């Protein structure tokens, strides 16, 4: 995230190969050529074949990794290829993916959020407890929860741009505070550490239809979270590649000072990204509530790393300025496939985490390898 004017070792950071000045079209197209091309003509005008363009996509490696993982489990696990199993895998992926997509956008913008895991829990707790305590229609709780969750995102973003401290520290603070608040407030209000059931309240059925129902699609039932997930991917991809805001996101992640110098509203972009994360947390949180009816206040801790992992597996750089929403979705899919595939394959359960870690590492290595090859070809 240093200014783009610093000299870059070759191949060290794709974001910089994209060629500053950031905030222009070049920042989001994934590198046509190293600087030499500009001698001939403007690099942005160089024509490239569809194949070349595909090779340049940040999610390419992840897609190949996903195919590899899919093939592995199709071979070793008998029950993996059944429609019902795939629907389970998609469900597991979607619950991660709904958060991985906005988290990926945030990471492209060069920031982290460690509070995402517990923010999801906060969102569902607020919704449930507000409805219950006020004996209100559950939709009221859902709306209040949206405001509160966006408020937390706003807090993260505002603190970040005001204090200029690393987002790691700020959101670590939010993470710990929310963990405490979740427990403290739930106990103070409900008397126990889990919420009371709201399934017999008005509006529950319709809210459940929106956040936790399933759709029958041929032989399989697809959870509605999959629809939310795909919708978010589409929205985020459009935002990144087709709008001015998308340019800003790449720009602030590539080099904040340069971005500011060319007139990108850095603070607004970053706050917006945190609001996006909060929106994802709200959707996930409402799913949690309406799927399980009762929420345990201690849930969600540790999930923030899984969201970040999914984004990174999907090709986002930890340093910002590079990545895609589709990649993050594929990353979540790899994670979902692997964690459930190990169960389908009936591998020794005590070794579960080891297998999970090893498979993910292999997927990421494959990802990095493919990307390097793709870049060498260009």
């Amino acid at each position: 995230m240093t200014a783009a004017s610093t000299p870059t070792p070759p191949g060290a950071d794709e974001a910089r190969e994209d060629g500053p000045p950031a905030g222009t079209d070049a920042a989001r197209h994934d590198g046509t050529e190293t600087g030499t091309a500009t001698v001939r003509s403007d690099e942005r005008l160089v024509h490239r074949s569809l194949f070349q363009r595909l090779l340049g996509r940040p999610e390419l490696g992840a897609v190949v990794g996903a195919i590899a993982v899919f093939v592995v489990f199709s071979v070793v696990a008998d029950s993996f290829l059944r429609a019902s199993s795939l629907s389970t895998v998609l469900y597991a992926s979607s619950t991660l993916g709904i958060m991985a997509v906005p988290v990926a956008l945030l990471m492209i913008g060069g920031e982290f959020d460690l509070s995402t895991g517990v923010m999801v829990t906060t969102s569902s707790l607020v919704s449930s407890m507000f409805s219950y305590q006020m004996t209100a229609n559950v939709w009221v709780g859902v709306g209040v929860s949206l405001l509160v969750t966006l408020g937390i995102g706003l807090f993260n973003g505002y603190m970040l741009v005001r204090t200029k401290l690393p987002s790691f520290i700020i959101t670590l603070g939010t993470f710990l505070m929310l963990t405490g608040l979740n427990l403290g407030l739930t106990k103070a209000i409900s008397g126990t550490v889990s919420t009371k059931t709201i399934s017999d309240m008005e509006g529950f059925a319709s809210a459940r239809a929106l956040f936790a129902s399933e759709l029958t699609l041929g032989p399989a039932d697809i959870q509605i979270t999959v629809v939310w997930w795909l919708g978010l991917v589409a929205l985020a991809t459009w935002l990144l590649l087709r709008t001015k805001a998308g340019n800003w996101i790449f720009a602030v992640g590539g080099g904040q000072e340069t971005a500011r110098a060319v007139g990108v509203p850095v603070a607004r972009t970053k706050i917006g990204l945190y609001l996006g994360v909060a929106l994802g947390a709200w959707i996930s949180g409402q799913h949690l509530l309406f799927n399980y009816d009762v929420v345990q206040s201690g849930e969600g801790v540790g999930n923030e790393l899984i969201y970040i992992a999914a984004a990174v597996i999907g090709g986002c750089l930890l340093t910002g300025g590079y990545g895609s929403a589709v990649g993050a979705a594929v990353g979540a899919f790899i994670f979902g496939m692997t964690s459930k595939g190990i169960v389908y394959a009936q591998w020794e359960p005590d070794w579960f985490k080891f297998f999970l870690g090893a498979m993910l590492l292999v997927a990421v290595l494959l990802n990095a390898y493919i990307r390097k090859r793709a870049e060498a070809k260009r």
Partner: protein
Amino acid sequence: MAVALTSAALLAAGCSSSGGKSGEESADGAGGGKGVDTPRMTIAMVSHSGEGDTFWDIVQSGAKDAARKDNVRFDYSHDDEAGRQAQLVQSAVDKKVDGLIVTLAKPDAMKGAVKKAVKAGIPVITINSGGEHSAEFGALSHIGQDEAIAGEAVGDELNERGRKKALCVIHEQGNVSLEERCDGAKKTFDGEMSTLNVDGTNMPDVQSSVEAKLQSDDEIDTVLTLGAPFAATSAKAKEKAGSKAEIDTFDLNAQVVKGLKDKSFGFAVDQQPYLQGYEAVDALWLHSYNANELGGGKPVLTGPQIVTDKDVPRLEKYTKRGTR
């Protein structure tokens, strides 16, 4: 702004006529009246609980009820990391409390701190787990459930119900007492029992993992969860996977009681956490008031108690108020 408008509109749309706070019956709690007039004493409890565990809530409400009756100031602290739990014990010793209640989930890490407390003349009672180390560390008594015995009781119950193939769902990998429960059940169960590790802080993961397991093996006729919140989630997974398995669980909560009532769960194994908190505080009071010692050097067992739909009418209102 659109959001604010939407929720304002929703607010205007009004209230729920069913459920919620106003649907709640006022529960009658213990300790409302006057207790003993022995001198005020302070008792600290330090557990290995993580954040927001229903179980420890019930232990605490037991302890608090006893504290009210016994004119005791009750301090609760907890940390799921053994080193920090030991530090909490140390700070209770520094505060010179009149009695100490600790759990020994990781006995080796707690040994030093507990022995220090005993040396400082503070009576110690261990609860919940680690009964075999209690006397060795110098504690007065141990009040809890022997996880292996509880597991064995489950195995017997499963045999009686004619179960053939069971799945034991471990929601916290590497937790000794959870492993003991599974192992105990495996020991007495005549059928086949496999285990599944899930991430207990991530409900969708619990659901999809159990779902995956049931899809991969349709002979599984019993799912045994080791904590109450995971029973309801497993029931959901079972439904999605189209499995006929019976859901049985350790520990109780309101959802489990509801499930027992409508027969979506087979049975629950209760270790009566309320008793662990209540008896521990009361035993320390008895020790100070009357020099009593409970258990004769052996652990005092608070479970297992097998609970089925027949017990539901009695239990329902107690789980709702959070004491069962």
